[in-house]
């Protein structure tokens, strides 16, 4: 027959082992280690008490058994209370961790969503910048570049207009010179006409003298001579009128020459300066454009990187699932400990076969240990790493 103390000792080792294994699986730290420690201490004290009593009473075995059963039952009640308390605490802690993780993951997930939206918006802006820079030909989207190019073109047109005006003015000048020559010719002709008039006048005077000498016979002729003379005088007056009119025309032509000269002579110095400024501006705009392009390209490259980083962050949020799985399996371990607690509660002191009950407890402990081992092996097969899965944004 197995000695009762030995049996108790084995049960103690079995319980310690069982709780130890569970504790190892729980990996919850101080609480469980403390639980194991307490249970170990209790069994150690129990074992020593048994040894003492065994030394004292060897002859009265039935009585000893009754006392032993009482002590064992008492110990079991204490152990049961301790285990229940620990289970309660651990369950509460698990609940707390679950809530913390859930809240944190919720917050982080929100942040990532927001970050991703911001990144998308930024990407849109960058795209619109790129596309608006390409619309240089569109009249409604005048860029600095197109404006400067237009200015340059306008300046060229302006210079062309000036040169064409000068050329045409010079041509006009040639015609004007020709006209002045023609007017000089008219003056020469007018002088000849004047000569003729003065000669006619002289002839008329001579004719009048000859008519006077002829007396009555020449009276009629004298009238004609006078008429011829007055005609020559009229002719001279008309000549003078023409001369003054043409002189006026000459003055007008002089004014015309001045106007044409003014039109033809444009100072190009200001145009030169404008041209220099436009050239400078073209260069400047080109530089600014290049710099802007570089920065925009860099910005555009940053967008996908942000998206990648966010995706990595979101994938890392799988730790929530893994943590919940772990916590759930901890609950399994707690259930195993609970069932041990139940075994202790079921221990009935009224039954005679106390040794049989104890060995039954031992057997069941072994069974629970085996079950726990199997559960742990299957758990270690399941996913342990967060890198293995793909998770979409939620």
């Amino acid at each position, binding site marked *: 027959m197995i000695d009762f103390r030995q049996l108790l000792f084995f049960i103690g080792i079995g319980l310690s082992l069982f709780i130890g294994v569970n504790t190892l699986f729980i990996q919850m730290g101080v609480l469980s280690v403390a639980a194991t420690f307490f249970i170990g201490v209790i069994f150690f004290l129990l074992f020593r008490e048994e040894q003492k009593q065994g030394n004292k009473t060897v002859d009265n075995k039935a009585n000893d058994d009754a006392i032993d059963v009482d002590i064992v039952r008492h110990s079991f009640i204490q152990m049961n209370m301790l285990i229940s308390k620990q289970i309660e605490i651990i369950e509460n802690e698990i609940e707390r961790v679950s809530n913390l993780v859930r809240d944190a993951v919720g917050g982080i997930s929100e942040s990532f969503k927001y970050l991703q939206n911001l990144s998308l918006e930024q990407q849109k802006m960058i795209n619109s910048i790129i596309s608006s820079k390409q619309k240089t030909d569109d009249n409604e989207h005048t860029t600095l570049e197109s404006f400067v190019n237009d200015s340059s073109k306008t300046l*060229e047109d302006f*210079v062309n207009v000036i040169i064409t005006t000068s050329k045409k003015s*010079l041509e006009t000048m040639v015609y004007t010179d020709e006209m002045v020559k023609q007017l000089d010719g008219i003056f020469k002709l007018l002088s000849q006409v004047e000569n003729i008039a003065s000669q006619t006048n002289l002839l008329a005077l001579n004719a009048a003298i000859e008519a006077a000498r002829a007396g009555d016979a020449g009276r009629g002729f004298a009238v004609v001579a006078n008429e011829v003379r007055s005609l020559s005088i009229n002719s001279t007056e008309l000549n003078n009128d023409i001369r003054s009119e043409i002189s006026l025309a000459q003055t007008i032509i002089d004014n015309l020459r001045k106007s044409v*000269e003014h039109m033809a002579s*444009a100072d*190009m110095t200001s*145009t*030169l300066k404008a041209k220099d400024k436009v050239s400078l501006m073209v260069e400047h705009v080109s530089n600014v454009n290049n710099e802007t392009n570089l920065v925009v390209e860099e910005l555009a490259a940053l967008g996908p990187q942000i998206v990648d980083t966010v995706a990595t962050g979101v994938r890392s949020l799988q730790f929530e699932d893994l943590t919940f799985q772990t916590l759930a399996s901890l609950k399994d371990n707690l259930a195993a400990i609970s069932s041990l607690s139940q075994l202790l509660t079921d221990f009935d002191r009224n039954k005679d076969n106390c040794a049989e009950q104890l060995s039954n407890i031992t057997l069941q402990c072994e069974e629970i240990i085996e079950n726990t081992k199997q559960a742990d092996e299957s758990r270690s097969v399941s996913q342990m790493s967060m890198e293995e899965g793909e998770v979409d944004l939620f």
Partner: protein
Amino acid sequence: MTVKKVIAENSRNVSIEIEGRFDFSLHQQFREAYSSCNDSGTQFSLELSKATYMDSSALGMILLLKDHAEKVGGDVLINRPSEGVNKILEIAQFHRLMTIKV
């Protein structure tokens, strides 16, 4: 402010040199320098190394010279323009119209 005219012996190369300001006041002299050169294929070379200033009327005169040269089947060459004058010629984009020897 003078216009010098040199006609080579074969009368097909006419050189016109401008000294000082090249502006409207020269227009008559300038025109007289080329208007009588009507031999076909005459090459007009315009010496501008001593020209100190040029306004738009000078550009107009050069264009009229070019018209005349084309009429007689010849050509215009601008020789060694001074720096300021060359800038004006560049703005006017005369290098597209005729040869400019710097």
